[in-house]
């Protein structure tokens, strides 16, 4: 048996249909190809799940995995990956969790848990020091997330237990239901609904095992001396002081902050919902995920006659924009309450905000009427209405049922041309960066495997003037420029897969060269930066092929029409649209994909994954290269 460092070398498999738990050794071939974390989850799902099935089919699987660096002394090593076939994108789905859960899972002795099947009755898992127990969750089924955590902790009697759970939204299969741990959220692509469909309410973990590190003293010495440079990244101080929402003002200057469903470029309300204002007025305390020197996580506390005492997570930038500026809501206290609602019911702030924005815009255009809404008048800038709709989504009550389908499916149900105002890519609602302000972000949204995703690449950082010489990003890439963006986006996407495979947070901006060193010191496995990048590229390709089999293809590598043909009317990106086609062309070429966006055999061979991919395609009896389909014009 291999000697594992960083990795535990063990993977748990839990079949909820027959309550069977088995423990397997991690496959070194897999680790070698895709590192761990999201890489491992991608390869496992690719090999074991038929991407054509329904996300709620019991044969769908859900993988929770951590990376080799998760839970170590490496700064920002708090991350857990969760992946599955998504009920929202109807293809690849993944989301990431900070906080403390991943570290606990590692200390409990596992690199990953694979959830299979479907329980007959509500169930939760308790993982402790190498053992897994299935427990009855009927008592906690229906509870909101903070109560789930409290109940499990009191039932098991150990306050150190870390819980990842779903709320009522996951149980009711809201297609963008999230998974919550403490106040940390794996929000995107509806994996909470996959948990709900399996009647799995929570996974509680407790671990006391030691995480082994190959060269701990050298690692400690290296890390302690790197702090001055890690904390000098341009955003570190802002994130530390004000959280991710501390950047809203600067995003606004760029014309990046979405206003009124991406139709306006200027709005006064910004100043009351941005991070500095919120922190100065409502901060309860600063927090940080496991081992994080940045600490972008803020907690709010405020008393308000409408909501009573609210204590909970301070809205992140994404929440403040999606439930604030996007809906013309400039009431900061209402945002704190809404953030709390979303987390308690357990659904994604971005997807809910964007779906509500779609509904309001359609209502103002007469495409949705009071007959659809059950009498509700939808209008911009109405916090009471938003709170009401969020509760209806969490309970899937009335019009909330349709909203819980996500804007793509909801607009198909409503029809009447409302599809035009549904801001999504591949079914995933567009996050809070207008791609007309950062065109590389447009290409990133269009090509990310999970749909419109701002995190897998964070290309706007480069478009704001950052350089990453370690990745050969030497030159200044301007935000409205098209040239070279294909290469840039592919490079950054691949790198972010590496970060998420290792279990690191991308807001702790450690240069890639150092991360390569951390990997070596923690695992003892000699993989240098170019090899890590190759792992990232493999992950991109594996997920891409998963999507192609699922029927998500180059026609879906696009953006909502608004970004392609409606120039921004004012503000920092005035007059701009996204010229997607040339960027996409360059992107396919750089990736070694054919003009249909299908990875070529040569490319897969070059990445040493042609063999496993062909054998999997054979077993699914599918030939992706035989497809007749042309690139969308």
């Amino acid at each position, binding site marked *: 048996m291999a000697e594992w460092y960083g990795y535990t070398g063990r993977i748990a498999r839990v079949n909820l249909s027959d309550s069977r738990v088995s423990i397997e050794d991690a496959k070194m071939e897999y680790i070698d190809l895709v590192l761990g974390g999201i890489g491992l989850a991608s390869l496992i799902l690719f090999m074991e799940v038929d991407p054509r099935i329904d996300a709620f089919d019991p044969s769908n699987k859900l993988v929770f995995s951590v990376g080799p660096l998760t839970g170590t002394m490496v700064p920002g090593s708090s991350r857990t990956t969760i992946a599955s076939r998504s009920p929202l994108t109807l293809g690849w789905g993944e989301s990431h969790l900070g906080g403390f859960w991943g570290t606990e899972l590692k200390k409990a002795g596992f690199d990953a848990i694979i959830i299979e099947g479907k329980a007959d009755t509500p169930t939760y898992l308790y993982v402790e020091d190498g053992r897994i127990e299935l427990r009855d969750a009927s008592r906690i089924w229906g509870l909101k997330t903070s109560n789930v955590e409290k109940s499990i902790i009191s039932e098991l009697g150990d306050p150190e237990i870390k819980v990842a759970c779903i709320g009522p939204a996951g149980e009711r299969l809201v297609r963008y239901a999230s998974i919550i741990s403490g106040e940390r959220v794996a929000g995107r692509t509806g994996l909470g609904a996959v948990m709900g469909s399996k009647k799995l309410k929570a996974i509680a973990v407790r671990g006391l095992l030691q995480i082994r590190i190959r*060269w701990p003293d050298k690692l400690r010495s*290296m890390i302690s*001396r790197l702090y001055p*440079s890690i904390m000098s990244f341009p955003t570190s101080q802002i994130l530390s002081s004000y959280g991710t929402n501390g950047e809203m003002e600067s995003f606004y200057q760029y014309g990046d902050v979405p206003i009124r469903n991406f139709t306006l470029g200027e709005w006064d309300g910004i100043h009351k919902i941005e991070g500095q204002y919120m922190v100065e007025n409502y901060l309860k305390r600063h927090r940080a995920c496991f081992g994080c020197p940045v600490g972008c996580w803020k907690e709010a506390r405020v008393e308000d006659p409408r909501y009573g005492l609210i204590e909970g997570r301070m809205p992140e930038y994404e929440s403040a924009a999606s439930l604030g500026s996007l809906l013309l809501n400039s009431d900061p206290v209402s945002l704190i309450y809404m953030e709390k609602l979303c987390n308690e019911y357990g659904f994604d702030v971005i997807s809910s905000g964007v779906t509500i924005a779609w509904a309001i815009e359609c209502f103002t255009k007469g495409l949705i009427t009071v007959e659809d809404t059950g009498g509700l008048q939808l209008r911009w800038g109405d916090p009471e209405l938003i709170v009401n709709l969020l509760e209806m989504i969490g309970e899937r009550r009335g019009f909330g049922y349709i909203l819980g389908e996500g804007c793509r499916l909801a607009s198909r149900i409503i029809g009447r041309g409302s599809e035009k105002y549904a801001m999504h890519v591949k079914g995933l609602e567009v996050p809070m960066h207008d791609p007309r302000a950062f065109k590389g972000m447009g290409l990133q949204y269009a090509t990310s495997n999970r749909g419109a995703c701002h995190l897998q690449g964070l290309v706007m950082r480069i478009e704001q003037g950052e*350089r990453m010489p370690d990745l050969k990003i*030497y*030159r200044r890439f301007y935000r409205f420029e098209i040239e070279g963006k294909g290469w840039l986006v592919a490079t950054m996407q691949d790198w972010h897969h590496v970060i998420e495979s290792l279990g690191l947070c991308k807001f702790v901006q450690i240069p890639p060269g*150092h991360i390569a060193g951390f990997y070596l010191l923690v695992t003892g496995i000699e993989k240098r930066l170019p090899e890590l990048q190759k792992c990232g590229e493999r992950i991109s390709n594996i997920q891409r092929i998963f999507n192609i089999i699922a029927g998500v293809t180059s026609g879906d590598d696009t953006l909502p029409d608004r970004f392609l043909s409606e120039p921004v009317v004012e503000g920092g990106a005035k007059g701009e649209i996204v010229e997607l086609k040339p960027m996409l062309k360059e992107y396919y070429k750089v990736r070694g994909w054919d003009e249909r966006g299908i990875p070529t055999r040569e490319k897969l061979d070059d990445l040493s994954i042609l063999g496993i991919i062909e054998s999997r395609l054979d077993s699914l009896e599918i030939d992706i290269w035989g497809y007749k389909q042309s690139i969308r014009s």
Partner: protein
Amino acid sequence: MSVSIFSEEELRYEIIRVMKALYDRGLVSALGGNVSARIPGSDTVWITPSGVFKGDLKLDDLVKINLDGEVIEGFMKPSVEWPMHTAIYRVRPDINAVIHAHNPITTGLALAGIELKPITVEAVVTLRSVPVIPFAYPGTDELAKLVAERVKGVRALILQNHGVVALGYNLVEAEAIVETLEEVALTQLVAMLASGGREIPMIPERDRELISKLYF
């Protein structure tokens, strides 16, 4: 082909010693500046790491890279300026040591548009001509290219808005050049300030005839 009289380990200790000496003299700061040494006769280089306090480097901090910047040995990320270092090694096979420092006075004079003048024997003999490279972003291939274009026939360069680069057959030579640059710059600055704008005497033309015919 040059051969080393030092072992690799001695070379690495020498890099650490030079870095500390430069730090103590205020020519590199906690995070700025970098030093590399080629293993003579090879295409591999030991270089200081990026992002680590420069006054107290450890043996394990140094990184061995090839001329493409690929890490061959070590855990740390090589200095971001590796493209400049390796570009110099490529075009100057005679050079085995490169130091990039942030000499405040040399850099300051260049910013004021003032050239180093032949005011001391060191300025004439040791430095000769010192080209000023226009600003390019640190760590980029563009900076590396600009430096490579101007590095032939010289042992020192000034990087506008940034610092200096010094070369040597070995580390001691490169170190001497960095120190000489700053010494000459300081002397010249004092002379300029104290003379109140009067012309400063230079080493007479006849005493620097050969050098000035070749370099000035």
